[in-house]
């Protein structure tokens, strides 16, 4: 027991974050604890997400991993020139995952993966200085991915499957920097849509040149979440009486891309008890050009340029079998922000981040294990602005210092038969 605590302390002192934009990298506690590496790691059904090709190399006939996490994130804002300061007290996010894999025969495995790789909850104080950009936003998307993995040889496998996404968005912001009703309540709009459906796919390949070395590749396609007419509601509040008639509640259309992600990496076993993994992920955020919302009243088309750029994540992680029952893990990743200078909008205030992860698995018996992980996301203070808000034909700048961090902690179970 003493040994376990010692190991835990070490694991936690090697701290880990989540990813840029509205990506939430919490797709398995075993892999998250290892810096969210996993494209070349075969330890559990978590491979259904990280690399479907790996499922076919799993021990056991049936592998199941279930887990959930809480995301506690905070962003603070200040503007020295004008004396503004604000803090986004974001509600706790709860990403989860459920993976299952069944070995149909020696060369074919089938699996099902359910996970939540995108999401965002940001809640600024209502009517804060940036309220014309966002008061609060909640994005969520659940991915369901039936998966097949085929062992082409003992050294090479492929896998993949279609992805069905169901998503939801709720976004509130003020209509302008000053408009209010007769009582001084600021005019605002909330758009809300759920049950937005879309399709995509994931494919992977795995190569095991030796017993101790694994190479992996995974590509998950871009998925456009399109809100069509009738899918959601646009609720206009606190319009002054003279304008209320021009801003009736109604529906809206919009589109938000969930960008494609390409990952390749390697894992090797320097000794019987150690496993070290490296992943590189390229996220094709350039798909996120603009968040345009079309209303069907006087509000018209709201254009909100984003111009994200493609970004990289560099990950490293390790695991160590401390005892027969305990496996400890730690990792680190560096996550580049996809946001260009001048496009730093407070609804996704994610600068570059360094991320420290740690966790462990505790084997209850030969079948059941408990998996836990924590992730600490640290960003340096940035001074940036959003310069594309248009008021009366002029592009206005809203900026200042931002600093954010997040702590993710979660627990799950694995089952192996």
């Amino acid at each position, binding site marked *: *027991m003493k040994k376990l605590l010692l190991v*835990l302390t070490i694991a936690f002192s090697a701290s880990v974050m989540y990813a840029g934009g509205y990506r939430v990298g919490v797709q398995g506690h075993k892999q998250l604890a290892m810096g969210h590496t996993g494209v070349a790691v075969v330890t559990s059904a978590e491979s259904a997400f990280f690399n479907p090709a790996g499922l076919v190399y799993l021990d056991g006939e049936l592998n199941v991993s279930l887990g959930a996490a809480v995301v506690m994130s905070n962003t603070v804002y200040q503007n020295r*020139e004008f*004396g503004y300061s604000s803090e986004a007290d974001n509600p706790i996010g709860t990403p989860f995952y459920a993976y299952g894999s069944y070995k149909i025969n020696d060369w074919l495995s089938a699996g099902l993966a359910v996970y939540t790789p995108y999401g965002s909850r940001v809640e600024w104080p209502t009517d804060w*200085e940036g309220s014309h950009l966002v008061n609060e936003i909640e994005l969520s998307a659940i991915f369901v991915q039936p998966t097949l993995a085929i062992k082409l040889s003992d050294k090479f496998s492929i896998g993949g499957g279609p992805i069905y996404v169901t998503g939801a968005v709720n976004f509130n912001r003020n209509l302008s920097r*000053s408009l209010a009703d*007769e009582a*001084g309540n600021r005019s605002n709009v909330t758009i809300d849509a759920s049950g937005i459906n879309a399709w995509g796919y994931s494919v992977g390949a795995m190569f095991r040149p030796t017993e101790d070395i694994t190479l992996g590749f995974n590509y998950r396609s871009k998925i456009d979440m399109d809100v069509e007419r009738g899918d959601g509601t646009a609720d206009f509040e606190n319009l002054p009486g003279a304008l209320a008639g021009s801003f009736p509640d109604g529906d809206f259309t919009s589109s938000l891309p969930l960008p494609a992600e390409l990952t390749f990496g390697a894992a090797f076993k320097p000794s019987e008890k150690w496993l070290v993994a490296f992943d590189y992920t390229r996220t094709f955020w350039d798909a996120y050009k603009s968040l345009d919302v079309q209303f069907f009243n006087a509000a018209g088309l709201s254009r909100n340029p984003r111009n994200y750029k493609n970004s990289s994540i560099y990950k490293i992680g390790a695991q160590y079998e401390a005892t027969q029952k305990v496996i400890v893990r730690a990792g680190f990743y560096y996550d580049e922000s996809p946001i260009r200078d001048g496009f730093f909008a407070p609804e996704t205030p994610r600068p570059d981040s360094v991320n420290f992860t740690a966790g462990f698995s505790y084997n209850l018996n030969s079948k059941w294990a408990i998996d836990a992980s924590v992730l600490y996301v640290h960003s340096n203070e940035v001074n940036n602005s959003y310069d594309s808000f248009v008021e009366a034909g002029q592009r206005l*700048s809203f900026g200042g210092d931002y600093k954010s961090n997040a702590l993710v902690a979660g627990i799950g179970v694995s089952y192996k038969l």
Partner: protein
Amino acid sequence: MKNNIKYLAVLALGLFACEPEFDNPIDESGTYTSGSADFSTFVAVGNSLTAGFMDGTVFRSGQQNSFPNIMAQQFEFAGGGTFTQPSYDDDVNDAGGFLLGGVPLPGFDTRLVIDASEGGPENLNVTPTMEVSNLQATAYNNMGVPGAKSFHLGAPGYGNIANLAIGAANPYYVRHATEPNATVIGDAVSLNPTFFTLWIGNNDILSYATSGGVGVDQTGNPNVLSYGFNDITDPGVFAFTYQGLVDALTANGAKGIVATLPDVTSIPYFTTVPYNPIPMDAATAAFVNNGYASYNGGLQFAAGNGLITAEEAAQRTISFSAGQNAVVIVDEDLTDLTGFGIPSYRQATIDDLLVLPSSGIIGEEVNNDPTQINGVSVPLANNWVLTATEIQTVRDARTAYNNAIVSIATANDLAVIDMAAVLEELVSGLRTADGQIYTNNYFDGSSDALSTAVFSLDGVHPNARGYAIIADQFIQIINEKYGANVPRVTAGYYPGVTVVPSN
């Protein structure tokens, strides 16, 4: 389970570490400083512009956005204390306007709003609730008294309700004068200010201008008791008065900032109605010209007999044509030919300024007679137009006042804000730090103007957004002069015009 508890403990530590902290948080002491100034007791002295007057009155929510109140909120970052303003708690409808003895006080109407069903400004259609005779008898940090001219600030009895009937008192000051014979400056100084703003003198020329030059230029006459409401104050009186105000405010070593007077002819009250607002076709023009044929003929007769020059005859000759036409005005500076039955008419030129209320009468029929049209067949009276000659009179007085303000401020080592330059910047487009551009345009009903109009509907006073620009300008000069670091103000967050569906 034991290790789970340990796990939770570590988690709790992580949570504790979760609050992000800036390297240099602005709420750290020393971020904002007052430099060599001391904002602990800030007193603002002036007229309507200091009081937060907008849309033709002071109303409860509007007063919250007076420029000194906005400044005081920023001063709080740098050692500023409480800033009090006259109480408008009794403005139940948030409408402004006064009652005296329960009866609406003429000339003190409710605030102007845009009536969307009519498309123009109207007084908010509610009864005022503020009773002038409810005396507050309190000196406030905001000692801006709407309507006050320079010499009123030191005039005992200006706050005496008994003087209202004879026009020697001001209902705004009556409401809060500490005693019937108190003076505005005396009440201000009684607060022992450590810092002050002084912006006074606008009304010493403004009422002459807004009345279309109906008043008298009293330059050379130091007897203010003989002045009419619309007269221009003698610059000598102004300078003497101003010196006294500054002496009183600086007596205990207070620092402060004084403001020069902007060119009143740049405000929307004078720039909104063009000199040539009358569209006409050729047939109508011929008809109207026919009506002036005998007047034009009379001018030729007068010129032929040497009563006026040929240039004046040409200047006075009235001629309409197809297209936009200048209004016909009465100009008392023309050679008086009334003895010959020739009135003092001419058409306005680009150098004349029509006052904002003239938009309500130009082109209207007089006595329901379709041949009697204001500005066309019926010349506009003197009070609707500020002629080029009258404009020069106003400018001369303003220049003299501003020279006095700057020299007195310099002698007392006070900060000076050149409000004349600020208004000139608005004329060409004043760009704020966020990138927005504001102008001196009157609200034109467009959705853009909802976000960018900075003048209120009275055409003279800023709206809340405009006062925020003024507060920001004051702060910039204060920071510069006193080595202070007071945070600036974003005008774009402040409200503009009020539009109601119907009235």
